[in-house]
């Protein structure tokens, strides 16, 4: 990690982040670099909103941290710094004290209730 800007030198792009990189690459070297950043930011905001819908059931929240990482928090002040969705779930399981399973009937009910309401 760079000590000045907190940016990791990430060699590994998680598969859920790949589409942004691909889109930037497809638009070629002449493309506006600002567009890539806006696209990326938009995607991160969208992902944060959606992820929080799921995390609510476990009393957790995730926030974008200056566009480079995400901060995951529980209600007791516990925090974890995470890089992408791949590292979110283990960190969330640690904070929640139980595994987060999309097949869990409790979560399914909570999401369906939010949908109906």
């Amino acid at each position: 990690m760079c000590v000045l800007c907190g940016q990791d030198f990430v060699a590994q792009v998680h598969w859920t982040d790949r589409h942004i990189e691909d889109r930037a690459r497809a638009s070629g070297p002449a493309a506006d670099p600002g567009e890539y950043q806006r696209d990326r930011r938009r995607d991160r905001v969208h992902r944060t909103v959606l992820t929080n819908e799921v995390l609510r059931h476990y009393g957790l929240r995730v926030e974008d941290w200056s566009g480079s990482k995400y901060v995951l928090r529980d209600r007791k002040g516990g925090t974890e710094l995470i890089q992408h969705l791949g590292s979110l779930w283990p960190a969330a399981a640690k904070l929640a004290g139980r595994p987060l399973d999309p097949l869990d009937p409790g979560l399914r009910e909570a999401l369906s209730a939010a949908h109906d309401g």
Partner: protein
Amino acid sequence: MTVVTGFLGSGKTTLLGRVLSEPSMTNTAVLVNEFGEVGLDHHLLRRVDERTVLLGSGCVCCTTREDLVGALLELLDMDQRGKIPRLDRVVIETTGLADPAPILYTIFTDPVLQHHFSVDLVLTTVDAVNGHLHLDRNPESLKQVAAADKIVVTKTDIAESSTVRGLLPRLGTINPSARILEAAFGEVDVDELFRPGEMGSHAVPESPVAEPHELHDVGETHSVSVTFDGPIDWTAFGIWFSMLLHARGEDVLRVKGLLDVGEAGPIVLNGVQHIIHPPEHLDGWPDEDHDSRIIFITKRIRPEEILGSLDAFQKLLGARPVPRRTEHSVSLP
């Protein structure tokens, strides 16, 4: 790069020996784990000792095969220095007991290899004579079948034709997304074998093998084919699927599909256990059918659970999951 896997004695080496004698395969390098009784004669043959490095998480499929990294880097080096003729393809033959997932993981995560190699095919050989026995007794062979893009049924010359007829539907039921080919004593159409999906992409699902109902269950493994009633939100799907893989990754043997994300072309999704191929955006659909289609092959997870969970996520996904009826046609060649 092609990964050839298959249970002990299922004819991997015989098949390779046959295939490598084709002139079109001259610029192919071969990595094998062991020199078997059937000698392979090829100028780019390398032997690698299976050396695995288990990562902190302790999950078997997320292990790095250091031997493979070393061997592939060496090949790359020789190729780029011009010491060997230009490499077209690398074939990796696994041991009979190997799980193919770590090989994929190694290639997708290595900082150098991921930019130079891509896996176009996983080929699995199944012995027509002992296939049923292997599938009954060995979870490894089940994983190998589930991981396959193409399945080659070998030894059809010495097997009873009734056994072969029984085996083909069983393989199709375990892995409806794989194409099944038959080979007697390694005799197989090389072009057909190494040609990736019609799109030049590795992950276009073939139309599922004839089964009048959409939910397939073979003992503990299940497969379900799903579509959605509209375009889905790729970010939401990423959240759902990464969560599923974290919680139940070892029970998700395979996932393969095309997803309509509201753009001109679909996203190709292909995963073996935790290991997801880099998702690919296509510029257009491969055929007339522009609906999402995705096949999940699972162990211990019932199809209703997958559908129920996707249904609960429908507000985030932006579309409702619908079990997909498979066509009554057989896509066997």
